[in-house]
């Protein structure tokens, strides 16, 4: 695969800004400003994870939807609401659970407890 853009990649650029926030900004701030710097660090780390995992997660998500015969979360939501997929409810629950775990792997992987999958 050949890239149009020069290095660093989007992932590496975001990572560089996050490292600067961690190294210099946290040390030079306190109170509310430091709290907001921590929030910014968490947001950038999330973007890094999405740049890393997002494409593969999107493919897996589409496969799960297709297996249930729907092509979007909106359509799946309508099917759950109307009862149209009630005869496949176990499959629906497992597909939705897999989506939630995928979202957490980007948003906050530490939130996933070890005793539950």
């Amino acid at each position, binding site marked *: 695969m050949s890239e149009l853009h020069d290095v660093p990649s989007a992932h590496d650029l975001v990572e560089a800004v996050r490292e600067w926030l961690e190294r210099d900004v946290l040390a030079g701030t306190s109170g509310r400003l430091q709290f907001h710097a921590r929030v910014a660090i968490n947001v950038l780390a999330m973007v890094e994870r999405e740049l890393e995992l997002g494409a593969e997660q999107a493919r897996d998500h589409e496969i799960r939807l297709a297996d249930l015969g729907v092509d979007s979360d*909106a359509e799946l939501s309508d099917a759950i609401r109307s009862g149209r997929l009630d005869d496949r*409810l176990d499959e629906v629950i497992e597909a939705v659970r897999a989506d*939630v*775990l995928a979202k957490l792997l980007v948003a906050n992987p530490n*939130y*996933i407890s070890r005793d539950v999958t």
Partner: protein
Amino acid sequence: MDELSEALARVVGATGVSELTRLSGGASRETWRFEADGRRLVLQRQRSGDVRDMGIEAAVLRAAFDAGVRVPELVASGSHNDPDNPLRASFMVLEHVDGETIARKLLRDERFGAAREVLVRDMARTLAALHAVDPSPIDGLPSIDQVAQYRATLDDLNSRLGQAHPTFELAFRWLEANRPSSTRRTLVHGDFRLGNLMVDEGGLRAVLDWELAHVGDPMEDLGWLCVRAWRFGSSHPVAGIGEYDSLLAEYREASGVDVDRDVVRWWEVLGTLKWGIMCMLQTSAHLTGMSRSHELAAIGRRVCENEYDLFLALDGHWNSIGGR
């Protein structure tokens, strides 16, 4: 600030006000601490331009105090509708209560070790006491079907944010299929959890923040207290401190009313869903430009934590959707 001091002195009938200090500024109200003739008091005031009245909350506080519930005593209150109100916004002045409200300190600091031993009992007894307050003299207490209310809120948010949440749809199906047939209707606090409780080394001292008080099934307060967000990272289900069985047993003993674990779970599931929808509301405040902030923006990506919590609460209980 001098103007505020003068207004406060008039409101509480004091010769002078000192030590006026701003404590916090929430989205809709501000909190100040002050002394009036040596008496330590707290002011809660709606932000200017906010038309919400504090009249119902003041009436609830007074009724709870009169019934012996641990709440700060109401010293004065006023409405923004009253042209003679010196504070020109709805307000309440409350007796100051010493203690700590910050959940992480209460859950982890060594000095609250003894308090943690008695807190589940204290919370259960306090809930039993507030559920015994007669709500009928309080005008305007809301009493609404929250499933319908949050269904409408989610539909609105989904269409405005262009999103869908299949987990929430599964939760709504489960809630509709398992709705408890409770007949008991009482005063409900509506936001009973660490953060809204004043606690000292000896245990629970006062229940604060009665903004969401309403009439409904008292089990709502027990379920909300067990919502995973209010465990603040702890593994103990009840407020991050105790176990379901001890909360239920203490509540039974204090109230004389039997408690069904399944009904508490139903309210915990609804509470988890509500908190997820509230997170969507916060992120929409950023997205619509009402309040641009990366903090609010990030909250949108925490909705999946609530979805995960719903799976934790519902696993093993999925039956009875779709007539299974």
